[in-house]
């Protein structure tokens, strides 16, 4: 439900004031729609279904000065050899011409390939204020030899909206690693939307690595459209971040397509990680697999909402969805809601959600063999998460994960 509020003097109008309208050539209607939505409402509240467990009060009450820090910090790169792009506080600071890429500002309207989500609040913000983004096209039959690595660096108190467009042509194959990092003192707002299209037989893997260490508000969304015989995998790894909201919308529009969504999150202190996913099976004979697992420390919160739609006549769909959580503290909380909406009758779908503590008998067993309580718990927790990590094929992504978990959580896996 959406509240009608007076257009002036809302928290949102304060948030928007001073932001420059986008110069990206979205269609006039799209922009109008977005701006109209923002004119007549305020920030979402927990009365709205998709924000039921994630409060935006703190964001609404934050004033962003727009300042950015000039202090440099070491950017952790995942790949030794990649087509590398870096956005620093929204500015494209490193470009690579090894792939067919350009700034999204240089793309004409009809190529923006917009997957429009009406009434989606942060989509509207993104459309209205997107500063920049990458337009990357993998041509038909092209197989990228190296991964594309897009690093998003936040380092200040600034509002940044970025919009990427990735198009993977017929029978083309690519892997994109998107990392999000921030300096410890960063406390800005980042909202990144990626519009992704896979044509017939296209194959795309996205590794999304979130390790922002500041107190930023992070919003990101992958909107994906898959044509027939395509294969899309998204690995979302969230290992740090004060406030992280991930939205994934996959529209499976062609038969014999495969969709894999894997997510692992480790949440600590007062952090919040919210994963909202939608897989929409519009046609028959497709397969989707979704596995999200999280470990919660301290007073942290995790939200998982996974929705699978199987539309009428989308027969012979195999859709699996599972979310598991381990709470390592009495003060941590999880809100998990797996949902299936099936309008076809010949499908195989399952979903499940588990939330619990570590098996005390297993902890004791390991301690009785000489492991400290800490190592025992670590071993069990890493075994729990390894279900997800085992699905990641890229060795460098795995190595990065292992060394990050070793450095930040003391894990030895």
């Amino acid at each position, binding site marked *: 439900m959406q509240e009608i509020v007076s257009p002036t003097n809302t928290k949102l109008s304060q948030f928007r004031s001073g932001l420059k309208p986008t110069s990206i050539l979205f269609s006039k209607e799209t922009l109008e729609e977005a701006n109209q939505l923002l004119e007549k409402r305020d920030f979402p509240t927990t009365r709205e279904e998709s924000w039921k467990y994630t409060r935006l009060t703190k964001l609404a009450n934050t004033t962003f000065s727009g300042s950015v820090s000039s202090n440099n910090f070491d950017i952790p790169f995942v790949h030794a050899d990649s087509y590398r792009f870096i956005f620093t506080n929204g500015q494209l600071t490193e470009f690579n011409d090894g792939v067919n890429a350009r700034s999204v500002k240089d793309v004409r309207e009809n190529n923006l390939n917009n997957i429009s989500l009406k009434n989606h609040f942060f989509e509207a913000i993104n459309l209205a204020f997107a500063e920049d983004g990458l337009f990357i096209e993998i041509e038909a039959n092209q197989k990228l030899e190296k991964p594309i690595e897009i690093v998003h660096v936040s380092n200040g108190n600034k509002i940044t909206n970025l919009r990427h467009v990735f198009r993977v042509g017929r029978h083309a194959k690519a892997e994109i690693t998107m990392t999000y990092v921030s300096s410890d003192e960063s406390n800005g707002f980042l909202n990144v939307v990626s519009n992704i299209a896979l044509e017939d037989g296209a194959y795309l893997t996205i590794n999304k690595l979130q390790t922002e260490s500041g107190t930023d508000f992070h919003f990101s969304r992958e909107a994906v459209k898959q044509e027939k015989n395509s294969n899309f995998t998204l690995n979302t790894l969230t290992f740090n971040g004060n406030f992280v909201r991930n939205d994934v919308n996959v529209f499976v529009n062609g038969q014999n397509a495969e969709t894999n969504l894997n997510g692992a999150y480790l949440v600590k202190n007062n952090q919040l990680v919210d994963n909202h996913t939608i897989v929409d099976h519009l046609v028959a004979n497709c397969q989707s697999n979704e596995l999200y697992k999280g470990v919660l420390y301290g007073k942290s919160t995790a939200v998982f909402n996974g929705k699978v739609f199987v539309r009428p006549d989308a027969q012979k769909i195999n859709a699996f969805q599972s979310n598991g959580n381990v709470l390592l503290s009495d003060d941590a909380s999880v809100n998990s809601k797996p949902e299936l909406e099936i309008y076809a009758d010949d499908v195989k779908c399952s979903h499940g959600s588990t939330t619990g503590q570590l*098996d005390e*008998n*297993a902890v*004791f*067993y*390991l*301690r*009785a*063999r*000489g*492991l*400290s*309580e800490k*190592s025992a718990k670590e*071993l*069990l927790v890493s*075994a*729990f998460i*390894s*279900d997800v990590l085992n699905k990641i094929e890229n060795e460098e992504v795995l190595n990065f994960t292992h060394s990050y978990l070793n450095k930040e959580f003391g894990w*030895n896996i």
Partner: protein
Amino acid sequence: MIKIKNLHANIEGKEILRGLNLEVKAGEVHAIMGPNGAGKSTLASILAGREEYEITDGSIDFDGKDLMELSTEDRAREGLFLAFQYPVEIPGVSNVNFLRTALNEIREYKGQEPISAKDFMTMVREKSAIVELDSKLASRAVNEGFSGGEKKRNEIFQMAMLEPKLAILDETDSGLDIDALRIVANGVNKLKSPNNATIVITHYQRLLDYIVPDFVHVLYNGQIVKTGSKELALELEEKGYDWIKDELAV
């Protein structure tokens, strides 16, 4: 090796051990037998450090150290090993991985260098042969999908890897067929040395055909009420426990 004196223990206010005394010296094998509910498994759990039991009186000296002052892991590092009656299944944690961690934490405790990967794998091969444990099982997730016999063999494999001073086998024979029983018992016998000791907790005499005890104790009502040689086990097998209860009543 271990001296248990006047041990009293409760769980949830219920007294299970009522003044238990037991001394085991290096090189010895002791069998503890007794009817259900006598406190056999409680004793094993307390020795391993289960926290749900409350010790109300008594002392346990383990090789000069006060066992009660040691955490579960430190007991293991000091050389105490419990072969569980019900080994826990731990999905996702590989047997060898966890054993390497265990071994290295024990070595670190003793101020030794970590074991090299090569030496470790050699050790895995040698020790898994002792209990005829398929090396594939050794690298699978801990006890996951193992048969009852495989789980017990895995316990003895772990014991072989960790080379404890004192091993407590809690109903290791339960649920084993005769072949598995022989393999497990052979494993235990091969690991026996003048420097270590074994406490075998069992219901049945048949395990003691293979692991020959120096002493047999009868645990009843929370106390050791009778101690004898291996012949006592045969007598118990034949006559049951009632005659001991009668003896006590007199």
